[in-house]
């Protein structure tokens, strides 16, 4: 029987014994919000009615567009309008029949609608309690309280999303965190100035937005930009023909401009600091996001740098922490340091997560790895060349009749691109062989990966859930293998892949994990999920 199962009957009994005052609080959600969290604690309350607006708004634009397009058919438009009213009514009914009770052991969310539901979230299973404020929240003076539990399944969705007045949400969060951690949240996140290990200026945020996007994504986006410019140039003076250019421009915007702007907005006003064993993160321009988590919840730490960031000697830090889902589609992996100069990044790494810092004595890939990588590069190049033969001939024939710059460049464009890509593949393989390494420390181990966008992943043996070592037919010829390390990650389960190494070196990871369990170096209480 789980903790949740055990607690449910007690809670049901307690719920039945709710006083008249409690029912009054549930009937008048505003009362509880006005008088603060102390009035809410231990009583059954409802969310702020603003949650009806929050849940209805996503449907509004779609319905509005449909109604506009169906303006000539009043019956259909009326049906859609009725549908919209139905959505509002359903959301109202869910709000009015959903009660929340915070008490000393957990949170009970009970919905008494057609689909009845009672969810008990014990504090012992809570991974994080976060505050999210979007535009709707700001307009209504509310905050969304996101409660996440330690679970690999459904790790991308919060266990409960509850809307309260801003002050109430803050004080509830503070009180829950006080139960989760040993020190008071009020002291840490109040208006008192906090000593920051590093400050992040708006310029840092902009640079992070611009250069933390993966190089492949940047190159793809720029390709579509160049293509759209080229199409505009070719189609200039002709009727139509610019549709392809517009589509390319839109793809460029979706691939690059959108993610960059989204990152800048998301990480604006970025603050990070550590108090005791808790790391606090705050950021967001339009939607503000505040979270905190215990260092023991971190399963791995990644130091990342894209090609552009490396040229500027900048890198960022990400952590694999389960249970930080915001439910709003943002990146789930908390960033502990935006793109900063390498020295600051190292300082932050030591100050924020010294548990993931150790003296590395990395082992480079054996010679066999170089041969495997070369054969793989050769196969990829051959496949690329074969695929490009026909389009190259086709374009050559078509472009021979063109005049001007297009006539000079287009016939040879695809062969030149193909050769460039093949050279790039072989150069990437050379870099990959040179930089990939493996380091097996006493308590931690790490992989360095990535020819273009590089990352150093440091993992704790005690967080490894499963090790899979794989040898393909070519790797077997040269006596090397790769390992996938399965960990509990921000999105549930995920694996981190090593480079090519001797199988015995990779098997050592699993053996160390087993030895730590057998010897007692592994403390299950510190690593319980």
């Amino acid at each position, binding site marked *: 029987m789980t903790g949740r199962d055990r607690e449910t009957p007690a809670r049901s009994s307690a719920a039945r014994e709710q006083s008249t005052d409690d029912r009054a609080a549930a009937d008048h959600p505003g009362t509880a919000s006005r008088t603060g969290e102390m009035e809410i604690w231990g009583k059954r309350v409802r969310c702020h009615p603003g949650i009806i607006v929050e849940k209805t708004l996503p449907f509004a634009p779609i319905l509005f567009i449909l109604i506009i397009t169906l303006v000539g058919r009043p019956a259909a438009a009326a049906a859609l309008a009725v549908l919209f009213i139905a959505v509002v009514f359903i959301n109202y009914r869910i709000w009015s029949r959903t009660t929340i009770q915070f008490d000393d052991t957990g949170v009970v969310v009970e919905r008494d609608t057609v689909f009845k539901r009672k969810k008990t979230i014990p504090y012992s299973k809570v991974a994080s309690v976060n505050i999210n404020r979007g535009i709707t929240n700001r307009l209504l003076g509310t905050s969304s309280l996101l409660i996440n539990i330690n679970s690999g399944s459904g790790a991308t969705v919060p266990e409960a999303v509850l809307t309260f007045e801003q002050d109430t949400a803050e004080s509830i969060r503070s009180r829950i965190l006080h139960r989760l951690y040993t020190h008071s949240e009020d002291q840490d996140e109040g208006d008192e100035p906090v000593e920051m290990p590093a400050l992040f200026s708006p310029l840092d945020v902009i640079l992070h937005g611009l250069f933390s996007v993966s190089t492949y994504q940047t190159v793809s986006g720029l390709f579509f930009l160049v293509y759209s410019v080229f199409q505009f140039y070719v189609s200039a003076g002709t009727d139509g023909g610019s549709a392809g250019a517009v589509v390319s421009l839109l793809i460029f915007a979706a691939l690059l401009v959108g993610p960059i702007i989204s990152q800048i907005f998301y990480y604006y006003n970025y603050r990070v600091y550590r108090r005791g064993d808790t790391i606090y993160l705050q950021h967001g321009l339009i939607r503000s996001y505040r979270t905190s988590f215990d260092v023991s919840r971190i399963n791995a730490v990644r130091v990342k740098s894209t090609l552009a960031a490396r040229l500027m000697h900048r890198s960022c830090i990400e952590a694999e922490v389960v249970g930080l889902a915001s439910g709003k589609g943002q990146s789930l992996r908390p960033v502990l340091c935006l793109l900063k100069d390498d020295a600051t990044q190292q300082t932050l790494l030591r100050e924020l997560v010294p548990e993931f810092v150790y003296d590395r004595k990395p082992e480079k890939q054996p010679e066999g790895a170089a041969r495997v990588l070369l054969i793989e590069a050769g196969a990829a190049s051959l496949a690329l060349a074969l695929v490009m033969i*026909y389009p190259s001939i086709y374009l050559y024939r078509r472009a021979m009749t063109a005049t001007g710059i297009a006539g000079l460049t287009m016939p040879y464009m695809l062969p030149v691109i193909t050769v460039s890509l093949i050279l790039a593949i072989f150069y990437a393989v050379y870099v990959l062989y040179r930089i990939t390494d493996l380091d097996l420390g006493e308590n931690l181990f790490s992989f360095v990966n990535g020819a273009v966008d590089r990352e150093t992943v440091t993992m704790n043996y005690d967080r490894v859930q*499963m090790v899979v070592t*794989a040898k393909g037919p070519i790797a077997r010829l040269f006596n090397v293998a790769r390992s996938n390390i399965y960990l509990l990650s921000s999105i549930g389960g995920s694996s981190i892949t090593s480079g090519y190494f001797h199988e015995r070196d990779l098997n050592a990871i699993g053996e160390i994990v087993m030895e730590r369990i057998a010897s*007692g170096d592994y*403390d299950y*209480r510190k690593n319980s999920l």
Partner: protein
Amino acid sequence: MALFTGQRGTEDTAPDPSSGAPGTDGYRRLNRRCMISIYINYGIWYAILLAICAFLTTFSQNLSDPYYEIARLALLGVPAAVLVYVVVAPPVFYTRYRYRITDDRVEVRRGVLVIRHTLVPIERVHQVEITRGPIKNLLGLADVAITTAGGVATINYLELEEAERVAELLNKLIGEMLRERLQAPASSVTGSADE
């Protein structure tokens, strides 16, 4: 490291599978019936592939561009290459497949082209599940899915009784581990962890 001792031998497994054949390090093999299951499974997928190729060949018959000639050749070549794999892969899969359960770990070695060695510490197992599709049901086979917080490892094509024994053993090992933890005084755990 204690090994899993099966209760009953099968066509290809010794009565005492913990020791396995000499030189096998206690690894156990699958029943030959697994090949029938794989052949049936591959056969269904191959029929779907042939149907797609036949549809594409019919559809492209009126296309005269030389590029489509290459595509038509590929439509013949792909099923031929896949057929070779479909015929050869099951015996190779059967021959290479090994699994081992000890008191602290589960190991599976498998693969046709890529050989994988999976290691799951018993300490990390959250859930054990026996699954059977219609084909395996007909043949009396089942899979054992071992869920950890980071992913799922599977021991495939076990005889149903064997699958139940494996699941029972894993549940027993997990239960014993949890009982030991509940009984162990907090100080002793801390002591061992700090040593």
